């Protein structure tokens, strides 16, 4: 077999990387992995820190918060508190993966299998990414965003742009559509629409109107129309479109931040699946590579050592515990689906009649394409896996003195645990549910947001800070009602704009 081994030593060369990519691509094709073309980029550790602080993007606009991120990462790296991830992969077409020059040749093979084939095929296949992100255009858009913001800084001053970005960033998580299907508009249509909108707003805003004699009938009719007619979850979108008199360039920047948020949103929703899928495939691909004699025994050990530490899951009482490791859970679930397909137990047949004994490649492909973390866990978390992880559920109710164990990994608890774990990965329910409920268009132009409390969970006090940012963007007074489960307003926070 030694004649086949791609890299006998631990140093990599460009030939070795290309050779690994070729072999892995061949094996991946046998497993029907559908990927974007790959672009592997070799970078140094410092560049990796750069990439880290730019949220992994190859191009980014300038903002102090990225500098903060950079300093923090650099400091922790220097002190040896963190090792750098050995890969970053970008959802783009071609799919860009970063390989660190410090990696050994085995690690490069692992990263290629994990990122360039695992994540890559997930980006290309999963419905969220297909619906909400445009891999062909992202790099161009990033370049546009960077240049546009740089141009704005030149024209309007760095400070002005920085303040605007601060405010947008505070609302970044509320710059995302979750329900509406995106209507794909061409760029031109977009511009035309935006222009029309601007004109409309300019026409709407006319101070003279205040002095017009009131026509009671007309007024009542208009007042009855609540605006927006339905609560709006995408706060940044609403501000971009409806802020009473925001400069067009500011609207464009709001839009850029919103687009970035939308681009990243699928990644927040598929952490477990995405990492699980990539980890499952690097494991499978590397094993096949070894079986075919392309990996030396030494490389295989190195790979396994790294793989096991990636999927390590400490228990809740372990000092190293910091929540469930998405790599561990994801990898275990993906492997478990394969197991259920290939060698189902009696229990599996009962829980998963549809997939038990089916073709594992097809089943996994279906799972990868059509789910997000929440629904994926709700659909595929098996009793065996709950037992393996010894999962249990804790109820922490601040009106009670004690924590209560709700359910454990037993027959009575499986369903509840599955349901709760799924909920834990529901991005929409983990972040406070805040919507725009009213924009006063005829009167003081104030904006009202409402937070619907769930399980009596309040907002923490940074909400006041965020509200200031909303008011800064909106340009008029902003109110935030916290509504309890009974539908009553429990707390109202307000930010007044002193002078317009």
């Amino acid at each position, binding site marked *: 077999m030694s004649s086949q081994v791609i890299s006998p030593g631990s140093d990599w060369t*460009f030939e070795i*990387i*290309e050779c690994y990519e070729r072999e892995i691509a061949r094996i991946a094709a046998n497993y029907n992995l559908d990927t974007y073309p*790959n*672009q592997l*980029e*070799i*970078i140094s550790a*410092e*560049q990796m820190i750069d990439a880290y*602080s730019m949220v992994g993007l190859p191009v980014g606009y*300038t903002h*102090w*918060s*990225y*500098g*903060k991120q*950079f*300093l*923090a990462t650099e*400091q922790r790296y220097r002190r040896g508190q963190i090792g750098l991830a050995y890969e970053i992969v970008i959802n783009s077409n071609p799919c860009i993966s970063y390989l660190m020059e410090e990696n050994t040749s085995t690690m490069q093979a692992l990263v290629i299998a994990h990122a360039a084939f695992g994540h890559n095929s997930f980006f290309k296949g999963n419905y969220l990414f297909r619906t909400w992100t445009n891999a062909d255009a992202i790099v161009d858009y990033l370049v546009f965003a960077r240049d546009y913001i740089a141009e704005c800084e030149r024209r309007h001053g760095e400070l002005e742009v920085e303040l605007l970005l601060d405010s947008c*960033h505070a*609302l970044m998580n509320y710059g995302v559509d979750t329900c509406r299907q995106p209507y794909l508009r061409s760029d031109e249509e977009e511009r035309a629409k935006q222009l029309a909108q601007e004109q409309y707003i300019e026409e709407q805003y006319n101070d003279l109107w205040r002095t017009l004699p009131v026509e009671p009938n007309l007024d009542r009719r208009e007042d009855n129309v609540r605006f927006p007619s339905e609560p709006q979850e995408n706060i940044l979108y609403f501000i971009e479109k409806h802020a009473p008199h925001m400069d067009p360039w500011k609207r464009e920047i709001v839009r850029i931040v919103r687009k970035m948020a939308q681009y990243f949103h699928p990644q927040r929703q598929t952490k477990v699946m995405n990492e699980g899928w990539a980890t499952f495939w690097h494991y499978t691909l590397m094993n096949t590579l070894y079986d075919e004699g392309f990996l030396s025994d030494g490389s295989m050990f190195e790979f396994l050592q790294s793989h096991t530490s990636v999927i390590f*899951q400490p*228990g*809740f*009482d372990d*000092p190293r*515990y910091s*929540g*469930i490791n998405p790599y561990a859970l994801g990898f275990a679930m993906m492997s478990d689906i394969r197991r259920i397909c290939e060698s189902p137990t009696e229990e599996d047949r009962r829980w998963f009649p549809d997939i038990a004994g089916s073709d594992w490649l097809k089943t996994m492909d279906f799972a990868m394409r059509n789910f997000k973390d929440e629904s994926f866990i709700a659909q595929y978390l098996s009793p065996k896996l709950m037992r393996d992880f*010894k*999962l*249990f*559920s*804790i*109820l*922490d109710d*601040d009106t009670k003195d*004690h*924590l*209560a*164990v*709700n359910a454990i990994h*037993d027959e009575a608890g499986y369903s509840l645990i599955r349901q*709760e*774990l799924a909920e*834990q990965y529901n991005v929409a329910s983990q972040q*406070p549910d805040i919507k725009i409920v009213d924009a006063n268009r005829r009167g003081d132009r104030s904006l009202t947001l409402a937070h619907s409390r*769930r399980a*009596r*969970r*309040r*907002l923490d*006090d*940074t*909400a006041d*800070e*965020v509200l200031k*940012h909303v008011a800064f963007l909106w340009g008029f007074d902003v109110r935030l009602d916290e509504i309890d489960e009974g539908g009553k307003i429990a707390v109202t926070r307000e930010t007044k704009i002193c002078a317009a």
Partner: protein
Amino acid sequence: MLQVIDRRLNGRHKSAVNRQRFIHRYKQQIRKAVADAITDRSITDTSSGEKISIPTRDIKEPSFRHGRGGSTETVHPGNKEYTAGDTIKRPPSGGGDGRGPNASKDGEGEDDFVFQLSREEFMDLFFEDLELPNLAKTQITRTVEHDSVRAGHTRDGIPASIDIVRSLTGAMARRIALQTPLKRELRSVEEELEALSECDEPDQNRIVVLQDQVQHFKTRIKAIPYVDEFDLRFHNRVLRPRPKTQAVMFCLMDVSGSMDEQRKDIAKRFFILLYYFLNRSYEHIQVVFIRHHTTATEVDEEEFFQSRETGGTVVSSALELMNKIIAQRYPLSDWNIYAAQASDGDNWPQDSGRCRELLVEQILPKLQYYAYVQIAVERQQQLWQEYDAIRAEHPHFAMQTIIERAQIYPVFRELMQKREA
């Protein structure tokens, strides 16, 4: 389909702009940290940056988040003993249940945000708003002059700079290298020809062939040029900026009995600041240390800061020595001269007037700047009064008192304050 791109050659400092923005935004906090740092900074440490820490709460980015309280359900791995329905004592808030971002708030206290400033960034913040006093001479000499210095050899140049020896050495080596194989062949042909001609019945045809060959090789050997163009080597010369902006800094310190360790330490820090400061503006700085009690001596740095003498104080002795050293070693046309004097203000009563004379008549005209710091509480000493009179007439003479360490920097700033022209 696959593309492998080596990005390592791209810029490594993509985040430099963002880093700069961050520092700019939190300048107030960082400047404070820098000022704190110099108070505790080790004296010999002139080349490193500084670790800066600012409170995390100052740089937080807000977002809508859930606060504490309410009712939450979370799933954890690794159950060993619990069964459904068990109750567990609530761990102290922030304790090990790892429940999201609130956990660390009360548990361990928020860490400061710590990062490293580079030396340049540190210095820039440190000296912000300060301008080197009396920069006139520096400004004039800023126009950099160049010296042409030898720097090895190149393959092209003007005929005047041909290095003949090196060119011919190379040519000879090339000739030997190219001729040797030909000569070897020629020799073998000639030998064969000779053998043939000694033969009884020479093969005439063969002789003709061989003679042709001899001719052929001779022509080829001849064709190898004696000196070829690529043998030529030229002297290479590069322009190196000639440092004109050089400065000498005189450190004068009283080491008489009344200067205790603490006072000396303050003086030391003050000198260091001045050194940093000059370091930014001059390419070459020499430092002359003069210590004095009743007599003055020039010493090295270590001795300057460590020795301690007893006895009285005669300040003029140090000034005289400084004047002498300037005259001997530092011609005014080449040097910018700065002096800083630290003392506790004690002086032999009859000497203070002499000091003033010396300074005004001899020394100050030669100097860019003279800074006097008195490390003592009481001001009304004779030396101070005499110096005070000088200050009125000479704008490049400055004086201040320092009582404790933390004052060094403010006083230094004040002394070196930007002056109105």
